[in-house]
């Protein structure tokens, strides 16, 4: 005895509510950032200059492109171009992996310089710089975790598209995954200027 009901608007509505919760999760870190920036304006500029803007800039381009590919994937499935849709999903996942690899090299570089939470080098640089890098690691880390979750989600949906469980007339799951991916992108769009571009 099962009772089938389908309501795509409701599914999207639920996803939007979930996205609010994600925004608030990150907002806690943004509050800490704002207060620390007011307390240590000069130190934040010093610390920001230590970050490699090319790593950050490249990752911004990568994520923006991935947002485009996932949006195109939705249009593809709406037009019933299943193969194209899967390819676009794979492209998005590929870009997510590029982002994470890039992040890995960036962090390795910084860690090799002795800059990581609770390190001696960082302690010698004083509380302002320390707080910048602590926030940098944990905000970017939390964001990286979201990239991983988003990529996993898109992988699952891509498999479902291939198996015909997500189709041109029932694709709300792909839409919701794309919404999540856009949020991941959006958070980065705020992180990038806050950490790499303050002068």
């Amino acid at each position, binding site marked *: *005895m*099962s*009772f089938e*009901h389908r*309501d795509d*608007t*409701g599914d999207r*509505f*639920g996803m939007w*509510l*979930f996205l*609010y*919760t*994600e925004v*608030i*999760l*990150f*907002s*806690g*870190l943004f*509050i*800490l950032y704002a*207060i*620390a920036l007011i*307390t*240590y304006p000069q*130190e934040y500029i010093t610390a920001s200059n230590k970050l490699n803007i090319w790593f950050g800039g490249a990752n911004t381009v990568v994520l923006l492109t991935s947002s485009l590919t996932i949006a195109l994937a939705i249009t593809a499935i709406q037009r019933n171009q299943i193969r194209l849709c899967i390819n676009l999903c794979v492209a998005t996942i590929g870009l997510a992996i590029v982002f994470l690899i890039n992040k890995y090299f960036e962090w390795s570089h910084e860690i090799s310089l002795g800059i990581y*939470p*609770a390190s001696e080098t960082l*302690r010698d640089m*004083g*509380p*302002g*710089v*320390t*707080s*910048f890098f*602590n*926030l940098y*690691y*944990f905000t970017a880390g*939390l964001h990286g975790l979201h990239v991983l979750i988003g990529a996993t989600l898109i992988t699952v949906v891509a498999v479902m598209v291939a198996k015909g469980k997500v189709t041109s007339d029932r694709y709300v799951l792909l839409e919701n995954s794309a919404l999540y991916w856009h949020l991941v992108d959006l958070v980065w769009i705020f992180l990038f200027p806050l950490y790499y571009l303050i002068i």
Partner: protein
Amino acid sequence: MTKTPLTNSGFYSESPRSGVLGWLLSTDHKRIGMMYLGCITTMFIVAAVLGLAMRLQLFTPGQHIMTAQTYNATFTVHGIIMIFLFIIPSIPAAFGNLLLPIQIGARDVFFPKLNLLSWYLYISGAILAILAIFTGTGAPDTGWTFYVPFSTQTSTNVSLAAMAAFMLGFSSILTGINFVTTIHRLRAEGMGWGRLPLFVWTLYATAWIQVLATPMLGITLVLVMLERFFGAGLFDVASGGDPILFQHLFWIYSHPAVYIMILPAMGVISEIIPTFSRKPLFGYWAMAISSLAIAFAGSLVWAHHMYASGMSDFAILVFSLLTFIVAIPSAIKIFNWISTLYKGSIQLGPPMLYALAFILQFAIGGLGGLALGAAAADIHLHDTTFVVGHFHYTMFGGTGFAFFAALHYWLPKFTGRMYNHKIAFIAWGLLFVGFNVTYMAMQAVGIQGMPRRYYDYLPEFQTLNMVATLGSWVLAAGLIMMFANLLKGMLNGKLIGMNPWGGATLEWQVPSPPPMLNFGKEDPVVTRGPYDYKGVKADEF
């Protein structure tokens, strides 16, 4: 007839899977609700025993049954279990799940699988919390608030407890998302916003707070864990952090959380009072809007917990004013309940007695809250047992009693059996007397200056502490009697019909216990308001 086993009817007998898996993998909101109810009640009993042990330690000055460290761990665990595992999920997760879909004429919540996931997150959180007590380097001793810097430096098992609270927060968020979506999308034909039972309105307001405030607790607890694991130092002055910011972030969630706790309780009372007065609820829209107003204003008052922590006088003024504003919608509710009683044909059934006790106790707790919200008085009362008394007046005398009211009101609906009314009256009497003696004494000794969270005290506080401990024994007797009576009623009480109390909301128009999918083949069509008692009669039982 009275010996028919419980499992023979309604949603107990119809399930795609049989046996235990039929429960553990069920996405039916009633089964999930009953599972929540079982776990939540168990957690309440565990934490209540810890509370009684603390009262026993405070019977006379000096060390008796526990050391200072044990006492610290006891109040911490009592707080964590009562807050995160009992009060927050009590009415919304248990009764919200049981009733919300039926009351709006739906067959289930909007995301049934997510609902089951919430339950599993709840259980995982509960298991982690219990592990935190018995494993590692000792039970956490920070108080349920996890204040830094102590929580990042103590050697006790804080990380695990924080992880537990994080999981429970996640569970709460998913329930909130589910409920908001359900109320928006699954109302039956004819169930306009103006016909929602007040319980649904309060769940709606609660669900919004759960969605919007809980993530802040999540990130705060994650940061505490990171600080413990990696020395992140985001709340550590030496690393450029600020411990006061922890308090802000924590209370940005945890103050709205007390409205997660109290709003659904107000919804329960708003259902019971009209039914037992045989009169429509006075001021329906005022009640509905005031629920949203409490949720909104309650989200803006968090820093009134921090008057003594260090804040500008101007900020104190603003938060004090905002705190007073919350009293307005709360008072609207109290006045409307009393206006509903006025010239009603009042029947003092067990649920009604608990509801009346709620009004009195919540009013006392609310007024005490104003004393604490006023900065000048708070400087004197801050961190005394007055705060503990105030909190228990609103949370135990309020939400706790509303939970008991809900048990007496709706449990017969979901088990199909009635408990013994005489014993219910006696248990209520014991609870009412025991509760007020315990916590009034606690408030009084707090005004005299006894600090909270101390395992020992000066001799001049002894009389009132003895009174409070004596009260706690009466309270315990009431609890035992009440739970025993309810359990006996569930298992072999008299069978009841659809509508034992004469309620007009939709749950009273389906069998007791309700069938799977709640309504027959036809979707319900709603043609009358939730408090329209014309022609509604209570079944004999």
